[in-house]
């Protein structure tokens, strides 16, 4: 098997995540799809690192993970406060800046 197949898998996962962001209405599920896309990118980085024979790709993937962790913390806090004010986690309901 050619290791390029990992890249195809990463592309597929990224596509599924992007489609999920467009399709789903629930803010939490949308957020999970974003995480899926980030993970697909990480896989691509790791495979590129193996391809080029240096560890820079793994470092970038590591930074992506750290940033994703920070992003999840803030994003979920935003979802919780949205839910408190609107009693719904649907992204369609949050069409106004202010209630």
């Amino acid at each position: 098997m050619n290791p390029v197949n990992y890249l195809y898998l990463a592309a597929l996962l990224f596509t599924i995540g992007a489609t999920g962001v467009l399709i789903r209405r629930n803010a939490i599920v949308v957020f999970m799809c974003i995480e899926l896309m980030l993970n697909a990118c990480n896989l691509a980085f790791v495979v590129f690192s193996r391809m080029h024979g240096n560890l820079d790709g793994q470092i970038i993937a590591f930074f992506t993970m750290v940033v994703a962790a920070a992003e999840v913390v803030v994003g979920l806090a935003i979802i919780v406060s949205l839910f408190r004010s609107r009693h719904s986690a649907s992204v369609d309901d949050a069409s106004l800046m202010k209630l």
Partner: protein
Amino acid sequence: MSAQLAAYSTSTGEAFQFWVLGSVALIGALCTVFMKKAVHSALCLAGTMIVLAVFYLANGAYFLGIVQIVVYTGAIMMLFLFVVMLVGVTAADSLKETIKGQRWLALVSGLGFGILLLAGIGNASLTEFDGLGQANANGNVQGIAALLFTKYVFAFEITGALLITAAVGAMVLTHRERTERAKTQRELAEQRVREGKHLPPLPAPGVYARHNAVDIAGLLPDGTPSELTVSKTLRERGQIRDVSTEALNDLRALEQRAEERLERTEVVPATFRRTEEASK
């Protein structure tokens, strides 16, 4: 191991692992998107992430594989599940489209995007794989540390600032200042009396219902289940079990058989139905 990693083509074992776990990852990703309940989506995503961790390990990223399991499936998915439990119980995904045909357009554009990506990778000349044998010679963790604390040390320090900002931001976002005094128990009781509804405590579940689990509604004197007896969360999730009709129908069937055996005049069996079915 290093010889295998340097090879242009992977070993049969890795190929087998890729095809098996890769399909698991794809199924998990699809389930994340298409599962109705947010909890199921989160579990499917956790499965996909574990598979990705195995792939990192197979690609020579030993440190990242472990970090993936600890940070992603351990911390981030935990946080997701926590928020799903906090928020998602009553948050049903609305199936009404706000923009007409948006779902199909999204699927079509997703398909197009996927084809574009795959074709791009297929066209790129990715024939040479150097492998990590040389880079991992002194150990993967040591190699990453050497890079992280020399070439990327500034980015590493900025990351610390980012993490602190995120923690403070989350605290500020979820903190709620209390603007009015909390009501005392006496005031709450007076308010209940003034409003005049449900003065006594709510009825207990399972009363007269032959079972006393919390998800089984208590029965009113006429045999119909009372929704008030079951907790609000279970009611909104639609997880109330109603076994009263089965029991009553069993009893009715037994009586009918007894009548037939005794050759008495047949009683017209009136099957009990659930209240929501009967109201239709």
